[in-house]
């Protein structure tokens, strides 16, 4: 893709907008269609777009593998941390009403944090799967 100037310029213009749209879908999932899953896939799609146009080694410099592995685990950890925090504050596991002074605000905050955890984990997993598939070489190898 190195010689295609139009594709590279359009990619440079579009990728920030796709990332901002992913963040919009994540945080406005309460008031309109959206939520964690959709936002995670949109953010992963933006980075896959970058890898398709600029090549996988350059994308590995922008978003290294250790970042993606951390994202995969951090989302699930955030979800469980919200559950344990509500246990520490006196309620049951994943009982969001005790998270703040007011049950309704507590529920809203709990939903926001949980959807963020879901979005981070889904983005990390989609990106990790793409890195694994695209980074595999075709030539036969002697050791596995």
């Amino acid at each position, binding site marked *: 893709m190195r010689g295609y100037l139009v594709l590279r310029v359009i990619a440079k213009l579009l990728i920030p907008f796709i990332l901002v749209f992913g963040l919009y879908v994540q945080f406005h999932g309460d*008031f309109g269609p959206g*939520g964690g899953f959709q936002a995670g896939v949109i953010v992963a799609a933006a980075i896959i777009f970058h890898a398709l146009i600029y090549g996988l080694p350059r994308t590995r410099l922008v978003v290294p593998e250790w970042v993606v592995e951390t994202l995969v685990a951090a989302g699930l950890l955030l979800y469980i941390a919200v559950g344990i925090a509500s246990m520490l504050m006196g309620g049951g596991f994943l009982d969001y009403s005790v998270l703040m002074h007011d049950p309704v605000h507590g529920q809203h905050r709990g939903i926001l944090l949980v959807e963020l955890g879901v979005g981070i984990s889904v983005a990390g997993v989609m990106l990790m*799967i793409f890195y694994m*598939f695209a980074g595999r070489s075709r030539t036969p190898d002697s050791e596995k």
Partner: protein
Amino acid sequence: MNALDLINYWIAMMLLVTGLYIVIARGNLVKKLVGLSIFQTSVYLIYISPSKIIGGTAPIIAPGVELYSNPLPHVLILTAIVVGVATIALGLALVVRIHEAYGTIEEDEIHAQDQDGE
């Protein structure tokens, strides 16, 4: 009007049966996984079709709207879609490893190589 209402379900059943046919009749592993994906998607349609109420709208509470479609099947299918993509990704990773081990992704040739090896 009744037959035209049922056409939603009939075509969803036809898609399900076609996905099943691709999985059991074709020998190519990648095509089997595409058939599995068609099968899964038709099941989503079978779940979402009964949740629609004629005259209702999307289940996002807004002032001035009275009738909403049922939100429960949406929740179930949202989970099912993401689980489905994880399944397909694992299946494709297995296909890649099978190709590296056997040199082919046709089921008949893999069986033949296994039986020769025994």
